[in-house]
């Protein structure tokens, strides 16, 4: 059973456009929601993370929107660039224990 459901599976965006990736969860005990970026041949790298006490977090062109009542969170990439082309994973974890549950990933392609 997938604890975190991620969509879409793949996404194609024009350069300069907005990329949006969505995740949903059921377990209300989750209290940490990171997003990871992965390039081919490399491990996932932490991009941005949020805790449920805030509804939005922004770092540069990357923003997480968090809707606690709907149990959903999303990643927005503003002004998408070809260098953003990668696979993105959302995740959720519970304190204590630090076990992460990952979504199935979104392959993003930004075309020039």
């Amino acid at each position, binding site marked *: 059973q997938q604890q975190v459901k*991620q969509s879409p599976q793949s996404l194609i965006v024009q350069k300069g456009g907005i990329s949006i990736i969505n995740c949903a969860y059921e377990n209300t005990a989750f*209290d*940490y929601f*990171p997003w*990871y970026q992965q390039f081919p*041949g*490399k*491990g*996932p*790298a*932490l991009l941005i*993370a949020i*805790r449920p006490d805030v509804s939005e977090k922004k770092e540069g062109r990357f923003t997480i929107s968090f809707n606690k009542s709907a149990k959903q969170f999303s990643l927005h990439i503003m002004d998408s660039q070809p260098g953003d082309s990668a696979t993105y*994973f959302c*995740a959720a*974890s*519970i*304190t*204590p*224990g*630090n*076990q*992460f549950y*990952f*979504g*199935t*990933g979104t392959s993003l392609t930004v075309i020039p």
Partner: protein
Amino acid sequence: DAGITQSPRHKVTETGTPVTLRCHQTENHRYMYWYRQDPGHGLRLIHYSYGVKDTDKGEVSDGYSVSRSKTEDFLLTLESATSSQTSVYFCAISGGGGLSNQPQHFGDGTRLSIL
């Protein structure tokens, strides 16, 4: 980048042979994890460790064992490899736990093919 080294980076072996993958960290982090990554499944936790000699199972632990005799090393063993264990294996580390979770940092993976 977090100091995580996985070895080997690539391995091809035959069904029924034992295989050991190594993860070495230089960050002195308490938590270490082994994941496998497969298309359509994302990252799935195999085993994790919360200290020397302290390990626990993840969601896909069948057919795998782990050992952690030193803080810096976490070994993943496939006792008798099967073709279904062909995958990319990632090690991750974290200083987390306690009052709030901390991010996990990943190595660059081991691509394992079992013929």
